[in-house]
């Protein structure tokens, strides 16, 4: 392992001699400040944020969070000399100094980049908004509304979350945590490569993996639907999340059908319940609150509460089919 790390350092040193790959600015990742531009972190070798710097590894999720059809690219950074740790099905444990970086683009133009930084006192989430020239992304602590057109052709007021809203979703028992890189939502191949590169201590044992979203037509409908709910709902709807008081828990590993919403009455849904009485009525998607809220775009009704201004027409049939097939 030492040898490998040394070899990587060496190759980084060699590369650094050339004009290109910028180094990640480890100090910016861990310092207790909010860098004003994304470039200060040095996560990318170019100003346009297209080429990851040395040590910044692209990854994808089996089934991702849907954000009005934004095209996303994800990167993970683990500082030199450190390693991520596997913990079974769950989140990869990323050491202090690590970062997760996510680009959001529409029509091949970057709109925002969200970073999660693992500092000594915990994870910090920050949103950066790109300029129209695509040369610089600046910190938007208070979030932003941006008018744009989704891939489905709908004009929306896209919401860049503010720093607190980042935390609303990334909050587990009051602590900010990453959401995406859980072993069950990463491919076996990627995990193996990440471990082989020395960035991960070992390949985690995954009991059951979320299917690839593109393969949803051939995957069992329950697996596709549950994978989608995990990625899109379970960050709040889990016993330690922002929606803990609802008693509705939509994580991939949840086994209690009542907690999953089947014949469960709402608690504090307010008008979010519409005229329906249960979160999921088996066989009846049109009478299920879950479908009602997930297909609404009205503030106070729509779920997720943040990050969705339009309807996910690809996911709706999957969720409906799953509920329609329940007995």
């Amino acid at each position, binding site marked *: 392992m030492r040898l490998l790390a040394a070899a990587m350092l060496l190759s980084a040193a060699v590369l650094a001699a050339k004009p290109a790959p910028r180094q990640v600015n480890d100090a910016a990742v861990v310092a207790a400040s909010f860098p004003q531009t994304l470039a200060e972190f040095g996560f990318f070798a170019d100003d346009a944020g297209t080429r990851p710097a040395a040590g910044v590894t692209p990854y994808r999720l089996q089934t991702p969070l849907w954000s009005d059809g934004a095209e996303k690219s994800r990167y993970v950074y683990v500082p030199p000399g450190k390693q991520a740790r596997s913990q079974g099905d769950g989140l990869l444990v990323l050491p202090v100094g690590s970062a997760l970086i996510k680009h959001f683009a529409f029509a091949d133009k970057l709109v925002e980049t969200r970073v999660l930084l693992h500092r000594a006192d915990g994870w910090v989430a920050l949103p950066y908004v790109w300029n129209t020239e695509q040369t610089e992304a600046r910190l938007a602590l*208070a979030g932003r509304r941006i008018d744009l057109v989704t891939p489905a052709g709908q004009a929306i007021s896209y919401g860049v979350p503010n720093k*607190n809203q980042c935390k609303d979703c990334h909050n587990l028992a009051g602590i900010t945590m990453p959401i995406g890189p859980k072993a069950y939502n990463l491919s076996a191949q990627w995990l193996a490569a990440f471990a082989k590169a020395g960035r991960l201590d070992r390949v985690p044992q995954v009991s059951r993996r979320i299917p690839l979203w593109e393969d949803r037509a051939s995957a069992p409908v329950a697996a596709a639907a549950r994978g989608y709910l995990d990625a899109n709902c379970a960050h709040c709807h889990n016993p330690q999340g922002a929606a803990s*008081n609802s*008693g509705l828990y939509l994580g991939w590993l949840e086994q209690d059908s009542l907690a999953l919403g089947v014949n469960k009455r709402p*608690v504090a849904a307010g*008008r979010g319940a519409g005229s329906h009485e249960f979160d999921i009525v088996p066989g009846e998607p049109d009478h299920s609150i879950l479908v009602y809220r997930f297909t609404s775009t009205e503030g*106070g009704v729509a779920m997720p509460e943040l990050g969705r201004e339009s309807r996910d027409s690809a996911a709706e049939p999957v969720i409906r089919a799953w509920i329609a097939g329940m007995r």
Partner: protein
Amino acid sequence: MRMPKTIAATAMALALAAPLHAKTIDVAAGEDAQTRLQEALILAEPGDTVQLGAGRFLLTDGLSLDVDGVTLRGAGMDASVLDFTGQKGAGEGLLVTSDEVTLRDFAVENSKGDGIKSKGADNVVYYRVRVTWTGGPKETNGAYGIYPVSSTGVLVDGCKVSGASDAGIYVGQSKAITVRYNYVEQSVAGIEIENSRDALVTDNFVTRNTGGILVFDLPNLPVMGGGNTIIKNNAVVGNDTPNFAPKGNIVAGVPRGTGIMVMANEGVWVSMNRLAHNPTAHVLVVAYPKPFTDKAYNPLPRSVVIEENSYVGGGDDPQMPGGPQLTQMLGGRLPPVVWDGVGPSQPIVPEGMSFLSLGVPGPDAGMAEARPVLIDRPQPGAMVAPGRFGASAALDARARP
């Protein structure tokens, strides 16, 4: 380090009262209020006050506060208005997720979801805050006006809420709660204490709601076993607004014209309230009426004590099956206290007082099987008052120093 307890407590109180670098961040109404106010709420540090100027803050998204020990203060509940009429996203107007926060002297209007929600926010104070849906009672209004949940230490004092499509003031899954000196009108429930313990609800004025004050306990929630709650000295008057809650909500089942309603719960003390002109019943005590599978949940009300209260009118137009026949039988109005009759534990009333049991044979039997009977010689029960209840004195001091 060892420190005598009193010194440690004093040091702590001082630290909370006057942090070393406490500062005031002024935010005025006007252009780009959303960004300026949200930034102030993010950059505030423990001990700071974010001071709203007078005027109307036109907001496009929900606001949130996640820093411990911050005070958000306006120039008065009618002077500084956070106007969410143009809100696009988020589930509430203002969300608080940090501890020791004080919210005072401002208003929230027309939020798309709840008005102000504080979750997992211990020792929160709401003082002279107003939450209003300006179009009157409507199903499309937000559910809760003031909504502290999953917290220990809650004080809601001197606030004013109108138009909530669920509860004006709703405290859920919390403990050590005081709700006092508030005015709630034209909401489905005026004040609701749900799955909570050690609450004191006192000196509130609730009028023109569907139901005045509700104390509920529901199954399948992370926190259950509500009780040890005192409802006293409230004016519960003329709660006669037709129920406008969306159908799926538990409060959609509250009969129009209910004064104080206790559902499930253990140990609720209803004392010295003034109940006037609540047309279904002044006090209604019931079991949770729906099927459930949660083995840890007790659907029955236990040790509910209805002490001396004053009753004026009411019970003359009860919204329940067979209501007109019942009122006719009983000489024009139901007695002030009505119990569904489910379970062995009837409400405890003062000697000589009679009450109506609807004689419903079981929790999910429904009114069709009801065999109403006037219980004119109630079994005496122990009038045991709850133990410790209410928010701590430290919270009092933040509202009314």
